[in-house]
């Protein structure tokens, strides 16, 4: 019996693999090394290619897409400059464990190493910033490499994978066969937690007087929301979340303490500092969370659940590590805890902290502030929107004032803190979830770092709301200059050098709305939500010199927060 396999060229194989991986969107930009792929793309109908305006934008879009959908985001760029332009985005995805696969063109194999036109050693460049990367040297390895790339990106602790495709590999032909499964002998993520450790953890939680769940992005990666909900609610455990954990548990729930860390809530940080059993669920004890490590939950018995063994004991020593998929582990933990701990006293202490130092911002002076805009946005959307923030003060206010209730509704750049993330990531999020409103929120600084992608959104008529919180300052840097650098506002004032954002909106085919008055906010929100045939740029001209509080100074203990600006007269 003949079982002849079809003969295809590299480009055809490439698309056949994407089809089998269920890829529906690909963010890319053509160039010499990938012309053959683009030639075939012309006739491909199972996926939509989104032409970006800068390859960094393509990677952030793929990240936004992956975070909003839980699927792998895919990028296609050419060799040399196309490839190097992806580096910031790939690093961002690496730091935030976002599953993406980046395909880069490469010069023909015989020219590699010859400083050929548009050659860059992108595999070498991205080795420390990818979960894994590949140079495909033979078209016969192409299909199995793509299969591995998708598997590695999405499994275990997710992350970016880069596949470098020399031009001759794409042009040559071979029999096509797609492997059914992946066998990587050096890579076997552990998903099932150790039973006796889980029993021990359950016992500790049961006996705890002041337990606390510290929830990170891992719970979202693993889709463990239901399990977290059961674990927390059945035992009335307080829940604090990291920047990437927000949305895994409704912030409106009375068990939620909001975010912890540098700009976390006072009560969350007090709870961490005073808890007796800390259960870390898919979080990595990042320095923006822990502050001074020695004093972080210093008297607590620490349980750390993580899929990545290398995360255990990396920043903070823990008493009980459980390596495994946090979704499974939470389910088993919940089942194992037979009787909930008695926590009335702990809850009254926590509520005391909440009363002692609630979130606060100035109001009533007729001036516009980000916090107010966010409260109104929350009220109008009821949390049924994806909020994609950029990096800076507005990003921290978003965590404090926009109460996330749905998983995957909060997207931001955390680990790398990449300004310019929001505009393209919001576009990616929209392609993943066209059914719900997407709000991009940036500062005036970060907005300008990838605003070229507005035209990408406009071309596809995406009704994304691109919101700019314009203080005409690099606000977060200005805040540090005021607090820690002798009020030398060195190169952070943009008041003489910002573009006219309404003209920008117009030039890029977007609607534009601007205001500086709290009175207009509700109207502006209604107007922007009503625009459905194109993007809208909404500029809120806010108080220029506000600061984000509470705050833990860098390297300080999180139990020691600056809660508000000192009055110079005090």
């Amino acid at each position, binding site marked *: 019996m003949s079982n002849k396999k079809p003969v295809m060229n590299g480009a055809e194989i490439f698309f056949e693999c994407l089809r089998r991986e269920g890829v529906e969107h690909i963010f890319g930009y053509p160039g010499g090394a990938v012309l053959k792929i683009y030639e075939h793309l012309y006739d491909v109908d199972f996926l939509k290619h989104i032409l970006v305006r800068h390859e960094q934008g393509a990677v952030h879009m793929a990240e936004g897409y992956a975070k909003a959908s839980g699927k792998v985001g895919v990028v296609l760029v050419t060799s040399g400059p196309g490839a190097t332009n992806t580096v910031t985005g790939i690093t961002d995805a690496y730091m935030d464990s976002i599953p993406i696969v980046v395909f880069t063109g490469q010069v023909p194999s015989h020219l590699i190493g010859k400083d050929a036109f548009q050659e860059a050693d992108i595999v070498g460049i991205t*080795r420390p910033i990818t979960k894994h990367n590949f140079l495909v040297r033979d078209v016969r390895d192409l299909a199995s490499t793509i299969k591995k790339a998708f598997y590695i990106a999405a499994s275990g602790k997710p992350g970016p994978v880069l596949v470098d495709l020399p031009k001759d590999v794409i042009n040559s032909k071979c029999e096509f066969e797609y492997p059914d499964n992946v066998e990587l*002998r*050096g890579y076997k993520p552990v998903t099932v937690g150790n039973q006796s450790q889980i029993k021990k953890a359950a016992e500790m939680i049961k006996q705890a007087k002041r337990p606390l769940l510290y929830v990170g992005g891992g719970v979202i990666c693993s889709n463990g929301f239901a399990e977290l909900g059961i674990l927390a609610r059945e035992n009335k455990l307080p829940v604090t979340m990291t920047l990437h954990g927000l949305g895994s548990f409704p912030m409106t729930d009375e068990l939620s303490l909001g975010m912890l860390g540098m700009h976390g809530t006072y009560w969350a940080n007090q709870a961490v500092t005073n808890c007796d059993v800390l259960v870390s669920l898919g979080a990595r004890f990042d320095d923006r969370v822990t502050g001074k490590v020695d004093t972080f939950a210093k008297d607590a018995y620490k349980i750390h659940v993580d899929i990545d063994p290398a995360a255990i004991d990396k920043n903070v020593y823990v008493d009980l590590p459980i390596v495994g998929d946090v979704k499974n582990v939470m389910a088993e933990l919940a089942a194992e805890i037979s009787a909930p701990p008695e926590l009335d006293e702990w809850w009254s202490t926590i509520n005391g902290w909440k009363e002692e130092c609630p979130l606060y911002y100035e109001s009533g002076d007729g001036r516009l502030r980000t916090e107010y805009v966010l409260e109104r946005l929350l009220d109008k959307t009821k949390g049924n929107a994806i909020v994609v923030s950029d990096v800076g003060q507005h990003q921290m206010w978003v965590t404090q004032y926009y109460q996330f209730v749905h998983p995957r509704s909060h997207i931001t750049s955390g680990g790398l803190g990449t300004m310019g993330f929001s505009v393209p990531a919001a576009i990616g999020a929209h392609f993943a979830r066209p059914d719900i409103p997407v709000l991009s929120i940036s500062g005036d600084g970060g907005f300008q770092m990838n605003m070229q992608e507005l035209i990408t959104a406009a071309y596809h008529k995406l009704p994304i709301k691109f919101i700019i919180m314009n203080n005409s300052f690099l606000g977060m840097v200005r805040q540090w200059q005021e607090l820690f650098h002798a009020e030398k506002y060195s190169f952070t004032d943009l008041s003489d050098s910002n573009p006219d954002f309404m003209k920008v909106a117009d030039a890029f085919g977007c609607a534009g709305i601007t205001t500086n008055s709290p009175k207009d906010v509700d109207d502006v929100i209604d107007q922007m939500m009503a625009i459905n045939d194109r993007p809208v740029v909404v500029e809120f001209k806010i108080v220029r010199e506000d600061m984000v509080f509470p705050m833990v100074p860098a390297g300080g203990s999180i139990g020691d927060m600056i809660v508000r600006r000192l009055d110079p007269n005090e």
Partner: protein
Amino acid sequence: MKRTISVLLENRYGAFNRVSTLFSGKGFNIHSISIGETEMPDIARMTLVTSGDDKMMDQILKQLNRLIDTLKVVDLSRVNTVTRELALISVSYKKGNRAEITSLASMFKGKVVDITNRTITFELTGPPDKIDAAVNMLLPYGIIEVARTGTVALRRGEQVKLTPQQSESKGE
């Protein structure tokens, strides 16, 4: 304290680089690395000598394990091992001290592998501290060049091997 780690890894393009990139990126020390094929042509063994406190060692081992190209990582400082290094040491001699140099080298079981009218080159194998000692002893005579392979090590008796599952060839 110096620690020796044995790593079995895929014998393919870039795998070695991943390890060195990891060490430089994470700020881990490397005293020596040696690498070569094993009895299985698709698997290489790397012997790494590093140093750091227990916390750093813990991270080094975990981060090495995390690489997709590494198949097995073993901290040899915790087990009984045979450790060897090979060195070529070229020393200059003057009229009258050649015999002295040669006999010194022979105390370390050094073998003469090259000789000219001004230099003599020895081949030495042994545990790294023996090589250190030989180099120190020969230093006063004028060492011209030293080439060392770096440490290679194996566990005594029971071997550091792949589990059957790991050594299965990849399903294509």
